[in-house]
């Protein structure tokens, strides 16, 4: 699989933050879409059949990250898309809930620089 074909959806309401990750991922050769709220995220998933990974924030306008996660994982069209939660919620109960809802990874924003994200994503796709 060629890297250029990979599309990553970043669901993040903080534009500046989303942009830093987007920039680094783009530089690493990924196609990046940003959705700034829950509804836009749903629409983006519907429109783009070819999403290979979702980076999901939890605190979002319109729909919470958890409910989006549930939707994506219950919908046959999107259930196979890997989802990494990327949030600053770091309590065990929150992490547990995310993993219970079948998130593929749970990442804490403060621990993940764009560089680390790119490394992780690269590793993930390489391992697949």
């Amino acid at each position, binding site marked *: 699989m060629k890297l250029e074909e990979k599309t990553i959806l970043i669901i993040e309401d903080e534009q500046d933050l989303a942009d830093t990750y987007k*920039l*680094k991922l783009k530089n690493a050769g990924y196609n990046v879409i940003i959705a700034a709220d829950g509804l836009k995220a749903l629409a983006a998933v519907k429109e783009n059949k070819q999403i290979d990974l979702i980076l999901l924030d939890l605190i979002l306008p319109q729909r919470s990250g958890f409910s989006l996660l549930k939707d994506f994982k219950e919908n046959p069209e999107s259930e196979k898309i890997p989802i990494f939660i990327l949030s600053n919620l770091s*309590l065990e109960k929150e992490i547990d809930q995310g993993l219970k809802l079948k998130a593929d990874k749970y990442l804490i924003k403060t621990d993940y620089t*764009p*560089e680390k994200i790119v490394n992780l994503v690269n590793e993930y796709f390489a391992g697949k």
Partner: protein
Amino acid sequence: MAFIISLIITVLLDILILYLGLLVFKKNPQGKINQIFFILAFAILSWIVFNFLENEISYLPLAAFFLKLDFSTGPLIVSFFLLFAVYFPDRAEILAIWKKILLAAVCALFAILPFSNLLLNNFTIKNRGIRYEEGSLYEAYAIFLLGMIMWGSYILIKKYLSYTGQKRLQVIYVLVSFGLTGLITAVINLFFSNSLPIEVSRIGIYCFIIFIGSTTYAMVRHHLMDIRVIIQKSLVFTFLLVIISVLYALIVFSVNFIAKGLSLNWLIFSAALTVIILSFTLPVLEKKFTKLTDKIFFKAPIDYKEALKTLSYIFATEIKLPELVKKTRQFLQKTFKIDLVSFYFSASIKKYYRISSADKNKIYFLPAKGSYLAKYFTSQSSVSKIIARDDLEWQAAADKTKIARKMILEMDALKGDLVIAIFGQKELLGIICLGHKLDDNPYFSQDIEWFDIIAKQLGLALETSLLYENLEDLVAERTEQLKQANQKLKQISAAKSEFVSVASHQLKTPLSVIRNIFSLLKDGDLGKVTAKQSDYGQRGFKQSEKLIKLVKMLLNISRIETGRLNLELSKSNLDPIIKEHLPMFETLAKQKKIQIQFSPGLDNRLFNFDKNLIGEVIDNLLDNAIKYTPQGKIIIKSQKIGKLARVSISDTGLGIKPDNLKELFQRFIRGSDKKKIAIAGTGLGLYFCRRVIEVHNGKIWAESPGLDKGAVFIFELPMIK
């Protein structure tokens, strides 16, 4: 000699009767009953005088005249006795006006009768004393007197039966004394006056002092205890005298009968016989009589000494105000057999004593204004600290300001027959209201003397108790204030922690953005950068990483402080975690040429802890060790000590003054040494470590031989049970 004794007795008796009559009259000159009693006493007095004169005067016509006067006072006495019986202590309407007139007429008739021959005639003087023969109407006269007496007695008995309480008691005094007097007098005077020696027959007359005395007592009563004692003693004395006299008369009579003529020898013999008989029987009789009169006058004698002892003990041992009052009340009630004993605090006590809600039903107060009793006791003019309701009744009759009447009303409202004022050092603390004695007895002067003593003691005890309650109150009040202040502080602290928590969380996102931007900048993701730009990008990146770490720590501290930290405990081995954290410090250590050594010693034993938090503790401790060690070595050691895992991080750095060792772990404290202050730090790290270790039920401390001698930071975590 006998004449002089008779004279002295008569004069003394008359003076006494006159005094008692006036005493009653003066109490209330307007009162009908007082007037009647005064006339009655005067009639009896006259009668005694006439009786004396008739017997002591040797001139026959004059002696006969006094004898007639003597007999004519009889109807007067019985008539006024009847009137007295009607009016005493309350008027009983039983006589229609025509009956009164008829009665007065009959009385007047019998009063004149002695001056005719129909009652008395053939007067002679024998030895000392006049003798007479009975006329044809003598029996009628005697029956009239007895009839009147019986009528009066009947009225009194009826009253006695219908009354209760004090009035009943008053009536019984009059009845008993009159019954006794009347009996003795009637027997001796009426039937044996001619046959008995004059001295013996006089006893009947003297007996009237019993009646007058006890009636006076019944009317003036209250705590005129002395009269009561006099009456009791004189009753016993009279009884004995009567017995001696009767015995002597009997012996003389029998001896006379047997010996037919009275020689001196026989007289001596009979006197000796009397003395012998009496010497054996008198003490026994006296005891019996005393017991009998005790029963009448003193129903249940109180052991005042014992009572004082018991009550003093209560005063000395009971410090709580409501308990002190309750126990005193109960004791008085039980000891004196009183239907109700209540305690009312003076309203002014409220300023010293705040009643707790628990005591609200146990403590009573006099009204703040309008307590006439309180006013009376606190006024300058008040002499007594104890007032009896009966005393007030007398005062009320003469009192124009009606204050006594108002005091009576107040006493009735409080159900008190006797009120005792309790004074402290300076002011009236309250009053004790003693109700009615269950045995209907009044309060005796002994009772009152005793109350006077206990009132003073109780005053002291109450004052002490008030002081104590005050102190308790004060302590309670201050404690409450402290509690509130503490609560407020806690709230403020919680609000602060909450703020820190929210703020920290909000800080995380912008800080992540800044850090990410620096990261992109330094890595050339935003376009080509010079080495200098990259260097400064790196610095910005590092500082923002630090800031993120600090914010995380703040968040954790605030979570611990507000109790909202959910420890994410897992059974883990500590050694690998320490190992994991070492590489982060390698670069820094290398720069400072510090050697880091780790000797693990926990042998895969599992401990229960939050990996992230303990990891941060290790980070903090290592960070500190490197920061405060200009060069040298840092040795990390883990070992098992009993059931504890101990981790020590020792350095060869600046060391710590012994004084500062303990406060190191407090918030915002760093070593006070200047060198250290020059080194950047937040002063939060060790506090964070302490809080984290503490929530793990562990211990953390520092050891140092002194400045520039390095330091060891040690923490211990308990093993899994």
